[in-house]
């Protein structure tokens, strides 16, 4: 039976991962995501799972690489500076076609930055999760409930496409308490005949590897991966359209920024402005079609982010210069207010309420 509980975002993610069949978690403490590790440390030993606090994020991510190679559902979590350290392993994980889930509860940067919520790792997640030609699935939940749902989907899709999936949250979502429902879902991870888990003299040896010394072979492998990416773009792109049918001004925002934007859109509607919201739920693949469809119908798009403007580039590419794309954001851990976004909507509507 589904149960409804009040939970902190970070703890809800951890619980959702366990319910999705994750029994191998490798972490390293960093604010504002430490509760994920703490929850895992408490729960895993009681259910026969593994919680391991690694010596660094580098090691934690490489442990995930190892566990994923052995065929189990595995996960690591961190916040921005720690994700930078995980990028090496992420690259090998992508290059070796391994499934896993990585959680980034973003904080302000660059450098040590700050510990308040941020969305400034958008480029890192969607453009260059690593060196080399590569992508990972990137999910952007906007509520504790959605974090729970997306963690399950992240494990499923990571397994399905044999690639890492990132949950890109932020400090606000990680720390907020909200009611969540955990659906009782049958967990059936696919068979993993490619896993390096000991051949028991029953099959040829398996190899998990990202090295292809012949350039034509490496090109072929990368191209095959990009064919898979095209399939993913077709099948797995997710977006929420809110009051966009007749909208003159469409706000594009994800995660915590989308919550602020939604309130601003409601206020704008109350003030007689036809405002709407496009909320990408997957950041890679990016829901470009949803934006393109509206590009010749709106006066303007307004991208709202907790950064100096990163997703705005994807919105511009999707709008194909058919509509102006403006940006409003706060950074360093500052969160835009509903009024600030509302005022931007009013301005883009031509100044009339």
């Amino acid at each position: 039976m589904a149960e409804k509980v009040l939970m902190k975002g970070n703890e809800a993610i951890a619980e959702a991962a366990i319910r999705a069949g994750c029994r191998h978690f490798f972490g390293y403490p960093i604010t504002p995501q430490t509760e994920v590790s703490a929850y895992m440390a408490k729960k895993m030993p009681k259910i026969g799972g593994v919680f391991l606090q690694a010596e660094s994020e580098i090691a934690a991510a490489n442990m995930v690489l190892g566990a994923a190679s052995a065929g189990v559902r595995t996960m690591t979590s961190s916040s921005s500076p720690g994700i930078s350290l995980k990028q090496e392993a992420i690259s090998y994980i992508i290059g070796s076609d391994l499934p896993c889930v990585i959680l980034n509860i973003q904080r302000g940067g660059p450098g040590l930055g700050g510990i308040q919520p941020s969305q400034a790792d958008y480029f890192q997640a969607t453009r260059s999760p690593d060196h080399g030609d590569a992508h990972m699935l990137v999910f952007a939940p906007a509520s504790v409930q959605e974090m729970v749902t997306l963690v399950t989907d992240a494990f499923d899709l990571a397994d399905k496409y044999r690639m890492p999936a990132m949950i890109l949250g932020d400090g606000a979502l990680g720390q907020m308490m909200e009611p969540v429902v955990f659906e009782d879902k049958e967990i059936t991870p696919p068979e993993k005949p490619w896993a390096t888990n000991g051949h028991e003299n029953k099959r040829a040896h398996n190899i998990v590897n990202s090295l292809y010394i012949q350039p034509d072979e490496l090109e072929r492998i990368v191209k095959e991966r990009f064919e898979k990416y095209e399939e993913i773009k077709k099948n797995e792109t997710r977006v929420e359209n809110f009051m966009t049918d007749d909208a003159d001004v469409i706000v594009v925002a994800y995660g915590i920024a989308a919550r602020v934007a939604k309130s601003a859109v409601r206020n704008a509607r109350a003030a007689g402005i036809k405002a709407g919201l496009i909320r990408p739920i997957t950041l890679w693949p990016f829901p470009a079609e949803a934006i393109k469809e509206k590009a010749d119908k709106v006066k303007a798009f307004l991208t709202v982010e907790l950064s100096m403007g990163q997703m705005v580039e994807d919105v511009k590419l999707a709008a194909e210069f058919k509509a102006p794309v403006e940006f409003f954001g706060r950074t360093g851990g500052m969160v835009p207010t509903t009024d600030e976004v509302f005022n931007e909507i009013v301005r883009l509507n031509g100044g009339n309420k």
Partner: protein
Amino acid sequence: MATVFKKPHALTDKPLHYCPGCTHGIVHRLVAEVLDEMGIEGETIGVAPVGCSVFAYDYFNCDVIQAPHGRAPAVATGVKRARPDRFVFTYQGDGDLAAIGTNETVHVGTRGENITVIFINNAIYGMTGGQMAPTTLPGQVTQTSPYGRNVATQGYPIRVCEMLATLDGVAYAERVAIDGVPGIMNAKKAIRKAFETQKAGKGLSFVEVLSTCPTNWGMTPKDAIKWLKENMESYYPLGCYKDKE
């Protein structure tokens, strides 16, 4: 006809790419013989490093993962925690294990991770063409210590066995050398013992194998063995540094 010599089953038929006279091939064979003798090839997962032995995944017949440079112990940890019933070993050079991967090396030791680490100490970075390694001897000439390793500016070599032996989680640590037939026999014994230690679930088992890199040392294979005996063995004394009951 009686078979007097054959390739261990745990080695594939792939021709080794190692330079003539390189000791990597010998150590591969010793590991494979131990997997054969213990009958554990099918239950073993190897982790290959970045270095000359990066292609070890093509040579060992057990399942193999190729790890990022220095991270083999962390990768092996992930495998072992997922499959504690399996044998897991890493095979790493000195740049991989004692420079970029020192942190991962120390911490598999502190955790007493129940895996086996085979450490090839050839006092140089082989694959990248002969640069100074953390294990390069004082005064040794390499591409990046062209005037000889100067300890005042380039520091001292690291004795990994001695360092790891101080850690409570390390169950077995021994240094052997590929310096002749008795040395090879001894190395095999140590590798066997390391896998037996893992079988007994005692914690980290570690075998440091003093090895040669004739190509980058600029010596014939024979002179390289002589140089190993005369120079490396005094700085890196052979022997067992830890053997937990």
